[in-house]
């Protein structure tokens, strides 16, 4: 039996080198979690409920510090500090995983995982992710080494494959993780732009093995600050990158794992990474890979050409087009239904993992399709979905 992984805690701490001991936080805290001695102001981890009331009144910014810990620092330890201890090297736990250390990113991921209907759990066989190595104040600088249009020249949508090179800078990612892009400049109100998250479209060892780079799949949005910034970047341009983020929507390393991947548009990015990982690391793995991929037309399906070359043995492909003239509209949920026998068989296999990635709008359709497929096979999808989620086998990332 494996020993249970300890729950990790995001502990609120105060930087003693920046704090001026003005007592504002202690005065503000509604639950009296802040206390002090002659040396330091500190937060009692057993009381703090992360309400964040103390953050904005703090005049120094010293209050806005966090450490992910297995065992919280005691009051006595914190009283003795002359400076903040460095973040310990910790592996994210299987449950209650820390997806990001920045509030801004955490809420983005929380929003993306809403369709999950519960606490996200990483697959048991996933590698341990590194999270938030770089942040807005300390971003990694990457160089653009490629920027190619993926969609056909006459397609309405401009989706691009962008390669970012980190040189010698360590930027460890796992398939399924995201990175943050910091668009330069400020918005109309003079505020710096928000960080945007993009799923990594390449496998952990890079576009080519050990290349020190990664790829993104970016769709140009009308008026989109970050997507236009990225899509227009020439080779050689420098980009500020934060992350990596995400600790649950991850590739299962188990060769026996069946992976059902359902996506639309740029939601295909993590599945390109998954497929590439499987192809490189264990091309003969017994587990099956299925991809349900929806687009308006083949011309608008990212990676249409390269996907044709991936053998069916490695990846079962189900393309669904909703706007091909003269043909009925087919959505991913329709293909899931028409493949009911295959899907139902796989769902009953405890090695099967389901990943849904794409626009929020697809969530309910996919969910209903699974329910229909299960009903036909006398499976209670509502219950199975919970079981699968709790076992780290059901994942949603929609935006």
């Amino acid at each position, binding site marked *: 039996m494996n020993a249970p992984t300890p729950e990790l805690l995001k502990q609120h701490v105060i930087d003693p*080198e*920046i704090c*001026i*001991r*003005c*007592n*504002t936080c202690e*005065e*503000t805290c509604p639950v009296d979690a802040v206390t002090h001695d*002659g040396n330091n102001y500190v937060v009692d981890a057993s009381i703090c409920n992360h309400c*964040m*009331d*103390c953050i*904005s*009144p703090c*005049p*120094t*910014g*010293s209050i*806005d510090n966090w450490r992910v810990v297995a065992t919280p620092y005691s009051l006595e330890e914190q009283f003795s500090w*002359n400076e903040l201890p460095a973040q310990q090297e910790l592996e994210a736990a299987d449950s209650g995983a820390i997806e990001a250390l920045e509030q801004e990113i955490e809420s983005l991921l929380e929003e993306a995982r809403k369709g999950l209907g519960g606490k996200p759990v990483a697959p048991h066989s996933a590698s341990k992710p590194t999270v938030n190595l770089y942040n*807005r*104040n300390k971003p990694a600088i990457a160089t653009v080494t490629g920027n190619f249009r993926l969609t056909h020249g006459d397609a309405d949508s401009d989706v691009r494959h962008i390669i970012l090179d980190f040189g010698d800078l360590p930027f460890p990612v796992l398939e399924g993780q995201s990175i943050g892009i910091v668009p330069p400049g400020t918005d109309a*109100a*003079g505020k*710096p732009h928000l960080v945007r998250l993009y799923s990594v479209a390449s496998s952990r060892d890079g576009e080519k093995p050990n290349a020190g780079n990664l790829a993104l799949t970016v769709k140009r949005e009308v008026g989109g600050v970050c997507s236009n910034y990225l899509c227009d970047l020439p080779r050689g341009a420098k980009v500020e990158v934060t992350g990596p983020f995400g600790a649950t929507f991850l590739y299962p390393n188990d060769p026996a794992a069946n992976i059902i991947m359902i996506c639309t548009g740029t939601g295909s990015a993590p599945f390109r990474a998954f497929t590439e990982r499987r192809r490189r690391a264990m091309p003969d793995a017994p587990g099956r890979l299925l991809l349900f991929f929806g687009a308006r037309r083949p011309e608008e399906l990212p990676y249409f050409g390269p996907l044709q070359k991936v053998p069916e043995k490695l990846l079962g492909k189900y393309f669904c087009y909703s706007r091909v003239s003269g043909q009925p509209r087919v959505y991913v949920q329709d293909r899931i239904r028409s493949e009911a026998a295959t899907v139902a068989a796989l769902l009953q296999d405890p090695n099967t993992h389901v990943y849904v990635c794409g626009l929020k709008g697809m969530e309910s359709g996919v969910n209903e399709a699974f329910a229909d497929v299960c009903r036909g096979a006398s499976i209670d999808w509502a219950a199975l979905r919970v079981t699968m989620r709790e076992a780290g086998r059901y994942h949603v990332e929609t935006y």
Partner: protein
Amino acid sequence: MNLMNVDYSTKIPNNVNLAEDRQVLKALEGWHPGYLDWWNDMGPEGFQESLVYLRTAVSVDPKGWAKFDYVRMPDYRWGVLLAPQDEARLVNFGQHKGEKAWQEVPGEYRAMLRRLVVIQGDTEPASVEQQRHLGKTAPSLYDMRNLFQVNVEEGRHLWAMVYLLQKYFGRDGREEADELLRRRSGDADSPRMLGAFNEATPDWLSFFMFTFFTDRDGKMQLESLAQSGFDPLSRTCRFMLTEEAHHMFVGETGVGRVLQRTCEAMKAAGVEDASEIEKVRALGVIDLPTIQKKMNLHYTLSLDLFGSEVSTNAANFYNAGLKGRFQETKIDDDHRLTDAVYPVLKLVDGKITRVDEPALTALNMRLRDDYTEDCAKGVERWNKLIEKTGVKYRLELPHTAFHRQIGEFKNVHATPSGIIINDAEWANKRGDYLPSESDGAFIESLMQPVSEPGKYANWIAAPKVGIDNKPGEFEYVKIAA
């Protein structure tokens, strides 16, 4: 109406229901143009049209009172903001201890209270006046923004006191409110009421020292007024304290960043001995002994603000329940002090001697001791910072008897370590203890403005974190906007 939220429906943002308090609203609206005239005449010189990244309160609850945005200073929403009322609050000290806190001014204390409010109110515009020329020599946009934030908040503190005068003190209050706009810092005919607020703030090191030492007196005074049995004064001061913390921050980190830069420059140039002043100055940074002298000056000017060590006024304020001690409710005693004593340093037969005085009359002394303790902790943090760079030097607060204009020691000369010396010795040594004209001239020579985002003058280090978590290159002031 939800009193946590600020009402912007009147010209004056407020959470005191001004819209339904026609008389006070009218009085404040009558005072407003004079205030704006004062701000335009005496506020930050040369930057009234610039866009400054300031925080404004949109509510007095923790989540809402620090909203950041670009604002032209004359358009800043100065308002009347009181901490939320606690219905069960009591008078916590003095002869009325245990009574319900007063929502109106008790008739017998009217004059005393008015005096307290006016003295506090007078310091607020004074510091804006003292600091009005500093924008032109700001060492960075970040520092310039911090200066202006301090200035607009001092302006708001004036509003806070003027509201109390207009609301609770009738015609007398209105006259006092007008007087607050008439007096001028350093004016020969019509100076501000307290000494330290008539001194010049000639350079940025002085500004940082002022915000560390003199604004800290403000913090102590506000804290003891926040204990007041007169509830509106208490609530006003409690909200002001949160803003005052920003001023402490500007002072502590400002001096800290000067020390940091000096020590780093010394280490880089291989200067080990801090007393090699010319060598250090040649590096374009402020030598540590001069920083000590500046500290000696500002600390002692601020000590004078606490008044005489033994004071019947202080005793009366306390007895009446108008002004308490620092963190009164956290002190474990009877909160009446009728029989208690407190040790006070006095001059007895030419010697500095500790004498037990009745605690009631020694309240100024007690508050000053709390102040000194608070300062000493900050100085110790500066020392830690110096130590971390590897430079061997320690800053020390001077003795209470050193360089005093008010109280027990005003007629003697004492060294920073508290040894009484004669006039001739003092004349001889003064330049070692306090900044000389040439020290001032050197510092002034460094005061060259830096206005490129993310850049800092050579004599000061960059801050560790930006305001509102902004990145280093952020343009905190759009000067030509």
